[in-house]
C-alpha cells in the first residue's frame, strides 16, 4: 500500500505541534508579546514556574504592569530600543518573582513578523546561581591571595635578611640557592598579582577608566622603559608609527599593561629583533609586536590567550617562568575596549601579536 503524501494542512499542524512542544518544554523562560499593543500573548511553563505567576495573570498585561521588572524606566527604554532595532540583550537584569524573591536573569528579546503581525519574543534565563558562584570565586581568589601573600612576605624578608647579612660568606652553591629562592618567591608574587588582576577584569568590577589617549606617545614610553632589558639581551628593539595617528578613547594604564606584557614576551623569545608597528587600519588603531624568535606551533595559536597556557618552545625564555596568565590578561583588557587581539605564527621567522582598538570607542563602551 502506498502512503498518501501529507497535505499542507497536516504538515502545518505537525510543525505547529513540534514548535509548541519545544516552547512548552524549553528550559528557558519564554514570553511572547504583541509588538503593537505591547501586551503579553503567551508564556511557557518554565517562565510561569520561574516567576511564580499563573498564565491567566500574565496574558493581556503589559510587562511593567506586573511588578517583576525592578527598574521600570530602564525596561521602557529597553523596549523602545527593541522596537527600533529589533533586538535587545541584557546579561544581568534584576527581576523579582511574585513571592518577592530577587533574581538576576539573562534577557534576550527580538521582534519578528508572524504573517502581518509583529511579535516580540523574550527569552529569560535565571543566572542568579551563576552570578553567585562568580562572586564566590572572586572572593575566594581574593582571600586566598591575601593569605598567600603573608607567608610569602616572611620568605622574602628572610631571604633579604640572609642576603644582606651574610651573602659574602656564602660559597657559589649557597648563593645560587638563595637566588633560586628569590626567583621563585618573585614568581609566586607575580602569579598572585596576575590572578587577582584577571579575576578583577573578568568580574567587570573595574571597568576601563577611559581617557583620550595618544597611542604613539604611550607606546614610545613603554618601549623606552624596555630598552635596557632589550640591550641586556642583545636585542634590537624598534618602533614604527604611521604619521598623524588620531587619538583614541582608552584606559591608558590598561593599554600600557597590554603593551608591556606583549613586549616582555617578545623580548624573552626574540633572537635578535623586536619591532612594534602602530598604524590605522579601517576604523581601528592596530598595534603589532613582532619578534624573530622561537616559533609557536600553529596548533597552539588558538589557545594562546587561555589561562595557564605555556608551551615548550624550542629555545628562548632564559629559563624565566611566566605565570601563564599574561596573555589572558591582555585578552580581557582588549575585550573591555571592544577590540581584538590575535597571534600569527611565522614559522621559523618568529611570531607576531596584533591588537586593534576601535577609534569610535566612546559610544561603544
Amino acid at each position: 500500500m502506498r502512503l498518501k503524501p501529507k497535505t499542507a494542512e497536516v504538515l502545518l499542524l505537525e510543525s505547529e505541534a513540534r514548535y509548541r512542544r519545544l516552547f512548552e518544554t524549553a528550559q528557558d523562560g519564554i514570553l511572547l508579546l504583541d509588538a503593537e499593543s505591547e501586551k503579553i500573548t503567551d508564556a511557557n511553563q518554565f517562565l510561569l514556574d520561574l516567576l511564580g505567576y499563573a498564565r491567566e495573570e500574565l496574558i493581556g498585561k503589559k510587562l511593567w504592569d506586573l511588578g517583576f521588572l525592578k527598574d521600570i524606566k530602564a525596561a521602557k527604554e529597553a523596549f523602545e530600543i527593541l522596537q527600533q532595532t529589533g533586538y535587545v540583550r541584557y546579561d544581568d537584569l534584576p527581576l523579582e518573582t511574585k513571592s518577592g524573591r530577587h533574581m538576576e536573569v539573562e534577557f534576550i528579546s527580538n521582534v519578528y513578523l508572524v504573517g502581518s503581525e509583529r511579535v516580540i519574543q523574550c527569552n529569560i534565563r535565571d543566572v542568579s546561581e551563576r552570578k553567585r558562584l562568580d562572586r564566590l570565586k572572586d572572593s575566594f581568589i581574593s582571600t586566598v591571595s591575601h593569605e598567600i601573600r603573608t607567608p610569602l612576605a616572611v620568605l622574602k624578608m628572610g631571604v633579604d635578611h640572609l642576603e644582606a647579612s651574610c651573602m659574602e660568606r656564602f660559597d657559589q652553591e649557597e648563593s645560587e640557592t638563595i637566588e633560586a629562592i628569590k626567583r621563585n618567591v618573585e614568581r609566586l608574587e607575580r602569579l598572585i598579582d596576575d590572578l587577582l588582576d584577571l579575576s578583577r577584569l573578568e568580574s567587570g568590577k573595574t571597568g576601563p577608566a577611559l581617557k583620550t589617549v595618544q597611542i604613539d606617545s604611550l607606546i614610545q614610553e613603554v618601549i623606552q622603559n624596555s630598552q635596557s632589558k632589550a640591550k641586556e639581551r642583545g636585542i634590537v628593539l624598534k618602533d614604527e608609527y604611521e604619521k598623524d595617528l588620531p587619538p583614541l578613547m582608552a584606559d591608558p594604564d590598561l593599554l600600557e599593561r597590554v603593551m608591556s606584557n606583549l613586549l616582555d614576551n617578545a623580548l624573552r623569545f626574540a633572537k635578535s629583533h623586536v619591532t612594534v608597528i602602530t598604524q590605522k587600519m579601517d576604523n581601528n588603531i592596530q598595534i603589532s609586536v613582532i619578534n624573530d624568535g622561537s616559533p609557536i606551533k600553529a596548533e597552539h595559536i588558538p589557545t594562546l590567550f587561555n589561562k595557564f597556557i605555556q608551551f615548550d618552545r624550542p629555545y628562548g625564555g632564559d629559563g624565566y617562568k611566566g605565570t601563564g596568565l599574561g596573555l589572558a590578561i591582555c585578552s580581557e583588557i582588549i575585550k573591555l575596549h571592544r577590540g581584538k587581539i590575535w597571534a600569527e605564527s611565522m614559522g621559523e621567522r618568529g611570531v607576531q601579536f596584533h591588537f586593534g582598538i576601535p577609534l569610535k570607542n566612546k559610544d561603544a563602551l
Partner: protein
Amino acid sequence: MKAKILIIDDEVDYSTLLSRRLRLDGYDVACYDRGEGALETIRRILPDLILLDINLPNISGFEVYNRIKSDEELKGIPIIFLSALHEKEEYCLHFLKADGFLKKPCDSSLILRTITFVLAPLR
C-alpha cells in the same frame, strides 16, 4: 642617634625578620603583635616611626591608627602601613593621610628607602 622604629604586626615571623633586617641598617627596632595595648607600648617606647599592619586580631590597624592620631602626645609620630591588603593603599594614603603604604611582600630595600624618606624632614 639611631632612629627608633616600632613594628606592629601579629605575624611574629615577619616582624622578627624585618626587625633583623632594619637593625643591619642601624635602626633601633621594637616589635609588638596586637592592637590592644598598642598605645601604651608606643607611649613607653616613643618610637620615631611606626610600621603598622592592617589585619590585626580584635583591634585593626585602622583603629590603632585612629587612636594614635587622636592622642595629643602621639599624633606626630609618622606611620607607614605595611599590609598584604594592597587594595587599601588609596584609603590609607588619601583618606587616612598615612605617611606611607607598603605592599607585602615588599623588598627590604623599598622599606628602607621609604623609612629614610619619611624620617628625612624630621631629622
